């Protein structure tokens, strides 16, 4: 069982009624899809806010980072770095900068 740390954008923390990092538990491979599945199961109000309900495509104004690398365009089932699986580093869900 892996304990995964996830950092949400502020609006989604408000929606999920959490502060700071959240943690999800995973069995098996630690991938973006597995993390998001677990996150949506634990916080159902986040369904549809990070990825599309139907297609599961990442929302265009959001990106995923792991260990300072942009994983937004990697496959959803690609294994994430060991540091994410071990809980040493958080999986970051980051919103595009607003403003002009």
């Amino acid at each position: 069982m892996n304990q995964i740390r996830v950092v949400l954008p502020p609006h989604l923390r408000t929606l999920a009624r959490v502060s700071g990092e959240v943690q999800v538990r995973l069995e098996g491979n630690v991938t973006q899809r597995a993390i998001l599945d677990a996150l949506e199961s634990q916080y159902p109000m986040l369904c549809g806010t990070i990825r599309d309900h139907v297609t599961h495509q990442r929302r265009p104004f959001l990106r995923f980072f792991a260990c300072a690398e942009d994983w937004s365009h990697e496959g959803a089932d690609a294994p994430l770095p060991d540091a994410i699986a071990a809980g040493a580093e958080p999986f970051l869900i980051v919103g595009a900068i607003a403003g002009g």
Partner: protein
Amino acid sequence: MSGVRVLVGTRKGAFILTADGKRGKWDVSGPHFAGWEIYHVKGSPADPNRIYASQSSGWFGQVLQVSDDGGKTWNAPGGDIKIGPEAMQAGKSNKFAYDTSEATGKPLTTHQWYDGTQHPWEFKRVWHLEPSHTDPETVYAGVEDAALFRSTDGAKSWHELPGLRGHGTGPKWQPGAGGMCLHTIILDRGNPGRIYIAISAAGAFRSDDSGKTWKPINKGLKSQFLPDPTVEVGHCVHHVAMHPTRPNTLFMQKHWDVMRTDNAGDEWREVSGNLPTDFGFVIDVHAHEPETVYVVPIKSDGEHFPLEGKLRVYRSRTGGNEWEPLTKGLPQRDCFVNVLRDAMAVDSLDSCGVYFGTTGGQVYASSDAGDNWAPIVRDLPPVLSVEVQTLR
């Protein structure tokens, strides 16, 4: 003791304005859902404490929120935090999936794009929420790209009424500048089977069987920007209003032209009359006088602000054609705000209250049917919608 609750949706959150029946002193709460676009907030006629809110953002998509205490607290239906074996029962409240089943919607894959080509139907947001007159758990949602959804479990789950997109004209619908939105839903309290809806830019439609089948009701509309100005669909209807005691009479603010029908939309006639400009977005009907109608004329489709910098509500007491400007308490110089299509409402107290919000963040109220106006608030984010609950 009677009172009113004004539900305001803005670009950066929702606000709730409350007052007693005198409507002289207001309490303001909010922003609720701070930072999110709130396209519409509306209370259930069957249970005034049940309020639905459409919360959306370009980052995070669509969320539905529900309150059961008059807007004090909110929750996303189906979104309760679940940890443990049952956790895979995920929430559904913000899931709007078009019906693509073989039996109903599968052929409905595209509509017309701005350039005339066909474009896939893509869900973007909920523009309008219309709770049932009789059941607090039943609510309709008008969405972009245009479709009508219904929930019968308090917004936990949503199902499309596919007969609207599937009745035949769907491929000819096209987006207006604001998107291809289903923005108006009118339920006939006396005839539960009847529903009117309007889409920009397609037109108005009517169902007489609770949303199963639909027909366009646009005969008499003329849109000069269309190759065929009297075409069956393609009209940019901005808003439609009905008095509950006259379910066959509708008033419409079209892109240009103020229109009226007295036979449930089978035929429309223009009632713009002496309006200084017949472009605008909002239209509403007095709570007790079915022939008293309100509009806010806007200069033109290219200049979305009042004529001459003067914010004027126009009232007709004759069901159209003869209009009078209402100016007392409204800015009569240097005013260049807009009033969007869902941003006017009336209360049903003995002396009918009229309310509207502007893109400049003001919400104006009149407690005497429009004769005198005063701002309730002046500095909200741009107002997208205004609804009123009359509390008794």
